[in-house]
């Protein structure tokens, strides 16, 4: 790397000559002094209580409002989701109960029909349904 604290080459010398300082526009000093004077009384009468600049307060307020909205949205979302799950569970329970009732009813109806025909469920479907005799029930217990 070239050492920039050594002698400048021709291009750099030209660059230095071209990059002369520029005077500020007319009225710069007056405008600056006006601002400075406007600031001095404001500083001397300023309360000693530490206050945040208005812009910072506004930003903090907006940030807080956004955060509160997000948190509230999160809670509402969770609540809605829980309610939906409860509703689904209730519907599923009702459907299950209905299905059980229908099945019981169908079984009763089938059993009655078979009995009228002199058959039992085990004979009809080849399933051995063992009915415990009262004596066996006692032993089993």
């Amino acid at each position, binding site marked *: 790397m*070239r050492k920039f604290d050594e002698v400048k080459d021709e*291009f750099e010398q030209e*660059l230095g000559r071209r990059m002369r*300082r*520029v*005077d*500020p526009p007319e009225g710069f000093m007056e405008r600056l002094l006006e601002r400075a004077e406007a600031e001095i009384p404001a500083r001397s009468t300023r309360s000693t209580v530490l206050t945040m600049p208005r812009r910072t307060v506004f930003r903090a307020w907006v940030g807080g409002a956004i955060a509160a909205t997000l948190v509230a949205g999160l809670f509402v979302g969770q609540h809605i989701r829980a309610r939906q799950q409860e509703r689904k569970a209730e519907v599923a329970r009702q459907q299950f109960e209905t299905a059980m009732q229908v099945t019981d009813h169908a079984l009763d109806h089938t059993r009655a029909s078979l009995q009228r025909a002199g058959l039992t469920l085990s004979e009809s479907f080849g399933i051995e349904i063992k009915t415990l005799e009262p004596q066996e029930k006692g032993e089993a217990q």
Partner: protein
Amino acid sequence: MQIDSIKFRNLVEQHQSMVFSIALRVTGEFGVAEEVAQDAFLELHRSSERLESEDHVRFWLRRVTVHRATDALRSRARRPEAAAEEWMDEQHSEVAGAGLDFGIVARLDELLRTLPEAMRIAVVLRYQEEMLPDEIASMLGQPVATVKSNLQRGLQLLRRKAVTTMKEYVRAEI
């Protein structure tokens, strides 16, 4: 160093061209540069008690101006090339009284504005303010190697662009 209004006025007169020129070459806009320069002097007015000497004031003003100018650039999110035409027009009128070949000066400043921010700042401080790399590094809080690298790359870019642009300029003048 406590400063009264007369002392403040003297300091502004003494340093206004330095502060304004740094702000102008970093931001590339006259209006923004004036705002940056005023902000730097107002901050000097507020912080005068902490400043110990004339050298300290100059060092402090350069640093604050560079930081304010960088902030202004970023807050406006303008690319350096964006206001090149505006810069050229303004620069023409400002340097007219200086008796320079302002066509070339304006083009050089225009090229300078196309450099990335870090390189532009290093080049301005080195060639406008004639600061040494270690002084620039100390002022910007950067390693000297970073400053040297920015200077080297900035100069390479400027050379490359200057060759093309100056040829075009000479051709147009003929």
